[in-house]
């Protein structure tokens, strides 16, 4: 039983490490990577990003939707490249900046135009999106950065799109 308790504590501590929330005193903060996609800025929770990679070759793969540009090689492992420009704006991203995701369930990387900054914002500046727009459901909330509201990318929604499109072969 003691071991179970220890394992549970370690697991809980690990889970806390993966959370995008950081508590400092009374305030809770979220960390985001702000990335440019074509001419717009989007926020991606920092905890889902394993690494940022610039200018590596994309290896094309057939039989997939156009927003999947191919694979990149990360330490010998293939990662599926999802072009956020095609996904959000139906326009191919010309630049080569990759956000390699840290997921247990898949090997995914987001292709974006550029990386702007890493921000830590108080939870009070994160707002849920309640109205259903024509954004394909890729954004569940937004974050206030100065005078600008930046959509937060819902990684699960992107993964769901992939699963919906590819389905069962």
């Amino acid at each position, binding site marked *: 039983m003691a071991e179970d308790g220890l394992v549970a504590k370690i697991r809980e501590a690990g889970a806390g490490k993966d959370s995008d929330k950081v508590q400092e005193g009374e305030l809770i903060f979220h960390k985001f990577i702000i990335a440019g996609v074509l001419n717009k800025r989007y926020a991606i929770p920092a905890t889902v990003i394993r690494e940022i990679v610039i200018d590596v070759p994309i290896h094309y793969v057939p*039989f997939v939707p*156009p927003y999947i540009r191919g694979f990149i090689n990360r330490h010998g492992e293939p990662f599926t490249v999802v072009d956020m420009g095609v996904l959000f704006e139906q326009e191919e991203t010309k630049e080569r900046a990759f956000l390699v995701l840290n997921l247990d369930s898949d090997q995914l990387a987001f292709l974006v135009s550029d990386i702007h900054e890493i921000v830590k914002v108080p939870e009070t500046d994160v707002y849920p999106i309640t109205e259903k727009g024509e954004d394909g459901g890729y954004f569940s909330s937004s974050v206030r950065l100065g005078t600008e509201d930046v959509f937060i990318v819902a990684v699960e929604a992107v993964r769901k799109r992939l699963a919906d*499109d590819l389905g069962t072969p």
Partner: protein
Amino acid sequence: MAPPENTETTAGGNGENFVSFHLGELGFVMERAHFYAAIHRDKPQELDKAACPGLCPYLRELLPFEGRKVLMFNLDEHLRERFHLAEQGTIKVALIAELDIFGAEGGALVSGLLREQFPDCAGDALAFRVGGDGAIREIAYRDFRLLPRGLHDTLAARGLAACRFIDDRIEFVIDPAKLALHCLQPSLRPFLEAPAAERIS
């Protein structure tokens, strides 16, 4: 099978034999066990397309082999079109396989195609045309990487099973039977196109 022109032995020594070929910068490997003969294609006999309406576009040639004609599937051309690769040189290699590589159901389909449309061809074999640098190489299975989980089932069903990276290049492990079956079976040909090409938004 022709003697290996370029043998690569893995450090662990637990390698299996694979047939390897390149189309441009892209490498492809297939299990050697699929094939029982390999010959350099010299002067293949062109099929009379008018006599075979609706036939798979990659079936255009007959290969003379041991006194028989073997129908040839242009695997290199199929891959070039799928991967948008430029045309290569004219020297080609043909690999000959028995129909059991297609499995029971697929084998029956190909056997029926040969019997009905090509009665003067060998009824128990199909040739696969590959790139001219085809060679046998020894590679360990552990050197390959499964494709990312989200795409694995879709690509494996279409004949792309795994890959490995060598410097800046990629090699795909392919299943020639699955690649060919999607072309030979008209009902499966739509799967050759991107599954969601019609809905970018």
